[in-house]
C-alpha cells in the first residue's frame, strides 16, 4: 500500500492500531476504514472510552491491579481471606482466576515476569512492593500463580528465594498446566483444579 496517498490522520490511526498486540498492518487498516465509514458517534464513543481509560484508571496502591478507586474493590472487600495472597503476572491473569471462583483471598499483580532472554529483571516488576507487603502483612500463604512458561517459572523461583526468609508458606499452582501455556487462556475448571492442587514450592 502506498504510504503517501493516505491523509495523515488516517495513517496515524493505522499506525496506532498496528502497535497494539495481535494486530498486524492489515487489521489496522481494516479497523481504521471501518471507523471512517461507520456512524459518526461510533468513532467518538471509542475516543471518549480511550480518554476515560487514561483519566479514570490507575494502579491500586496495595495490589497494583487496575482500578478506578484506590484501594481497589478486591483490597477493600472484607469478605476476602486476608491470610491468602495470590501473585499473578498481569491483571488478565487475575481476571482468569476470579472467573474460576476457586480463590477468595488477596492478589498482587507483578506487571510482567522475569525474563533472562528479554533481560527483564525483578526491579522492572512490582517485586519490592510484594516483599514489603509480605514482610509487613499477616499472610499465612503466598500462592505463586505465574504462568507455566520459562518466564513464569523463573519469576516463581526468584520470588521463592526472595521470600524464603519470611517464614510464610509458599505454594505454586499444581503441575498439569502445559508448559508454555498462558493462564489467561486456561479454562475455569482446569484453573480451579490447579489452584486446589497447589503444592508447597521449594
Amino acid at each position, binding site marked *: 500500500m502506498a504510504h503517501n496517498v493516505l491523509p495523515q490522520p488516517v495513517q496515524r490511526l493505522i499506525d496506532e492500531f498496528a502497535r497494539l498486540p*495481535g494486530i498486524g498492518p492489515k487489521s489496522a487498516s481494516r479497523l481504521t476504514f471501518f471507523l471512517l465509514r461507520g456512524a459518526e458517534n461510533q468513532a467518538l464513543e471509542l475516543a471518549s472510552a480511550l480518554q476515560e481509560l487514561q483519566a479514570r484508571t490507575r494502579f491500586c496502591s496495595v495490589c497494583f491491579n487496575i482500578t478506578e478507586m484506590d484501594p481497589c474493590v478486591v483490597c477493600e472487600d472484607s469478605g476476602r481471606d486476608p491470610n491468602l495472597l495470590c501473585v499473578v503476572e498481569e491483571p488478565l491473569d487475575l481476571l482468569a482466576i476470579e472467573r474460576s471462583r476457586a480463590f477468595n483471598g488477596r492478589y498482587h499483580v507483578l506487571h510482567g515476569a522475569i525474563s533472562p532472554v528479554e533481560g527483564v529483571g525483578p526491579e522492572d516488576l512490582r517485586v519490592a512492593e510484594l516483599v514489603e507487603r509480605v514482610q509487613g502483612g499477616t499472610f499465612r500463604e503466598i500462592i505463586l500463580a505465574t504462568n507455566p512458561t520459562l518466564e513464569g517459572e523463573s519469576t516463581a523461583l526468584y520470588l521463592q528465594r526472595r521470600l524464603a526468609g519470611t517464614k510464610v508458606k509458599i505454594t505454586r499452582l499444581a503441575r498439569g498446566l502445559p508448559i508454555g*501455556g498462558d493462564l489467561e487462556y486456561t479454562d475455569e475448571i482446569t484453573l480451579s483444579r490447579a489452584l486446589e492442587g497447589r503444592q508447597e514450592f521449594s
Partner: protein
Amino acid sequence: MSRERTFRSEAIVLRRTDFGEADRLLTLYTREFGKITAVAKGARKPQSRKTGHVELFMRSKLFFAKGRDIDVITQAEMVAGYAALRADLVRATYASYVVELLDRFTVEDDHNISIYDLVANTLDALTTAEDLLLLARFYELRLLGLTGFRPQLFQCVASSEPILEEDQFFSAELGGLLRPAYQEQDRRAVPITAVSVKVLRYLQTRPWEMVSSLRLKRPLHRDLESIMHHYLTYILERNLKSVDFLYRLRREAELFASPDSPMIS
C-alpha cells in the same frame, strides 16, 4: 536449502513472541534449514496440541506448511524438554545465553548441522553441568569457530610468530593474541595471562568430555569470562541481554546467597 510446500525438521526454540489472538511467533534453529521464523497457532492456549512442545529451549520435531507470508507449524512433538533448565534460575539464564548467542551469530536460512548439534549438546550438558562458566566458555569458542570468528590463540595476529608461554595481549579487532612486542598494533588490546591462554587453547581444541573435568579457580574464571565477553561484544557491536541479566543476578546473589544453587560467579 529451499523448502517444499510442507517440510519437517527437528528444531530448538530460540525466541517467541505473542502474536495474533493466542498464537506465538517462534524463532527456531532447525537442524535441516537453519534459522527460520514460524507461527504456532493457538500455542498460548493450554488445550492446543502444540502447547507444551514449543516452549523456549525445547528441542522438538516440527512439521511446517509454507505460508504466503510466514511458515506455519502444523504439528509439534517434543524431543527434549529440558525441564531442569526451567527449574533453576541460573541454568535458565545460561540457557538464555546459549540461544541468544546463537540467534546473534546466525542469519535466517543459513543452515549448519554442526551448529545445531553444538547447541543441542550444550543444552543437554547445561541440565547437569557443575561448572556452568566452563561450559559457557567452551560453547563460545566452538560457536565462534563454526561461524568464522575463531580467535587465533597459537600465533601472533600481527606477526604470525608462535605464541610463547608468557603473558600476552588479546586484540578483539585483530581476532586473537598479540605478542607483547606488538601491543601497539591495537591500542585497545587487553592483557591476558599465560594461564588464561593455556585454558582457552584447551577449550578450543578438546572435546567437552575432557574439558568438563577441568577445575578452575574463581579469579581465573573471571578473567576468561571478561576476555570472551570483550571479544563477543566487539563482534556483535552490542551487549547481550542475558549477560546483563546474569550480572544482575550475581549482584543479587551476594544479597540472597543460597547454598544449593550452582556457582554463578
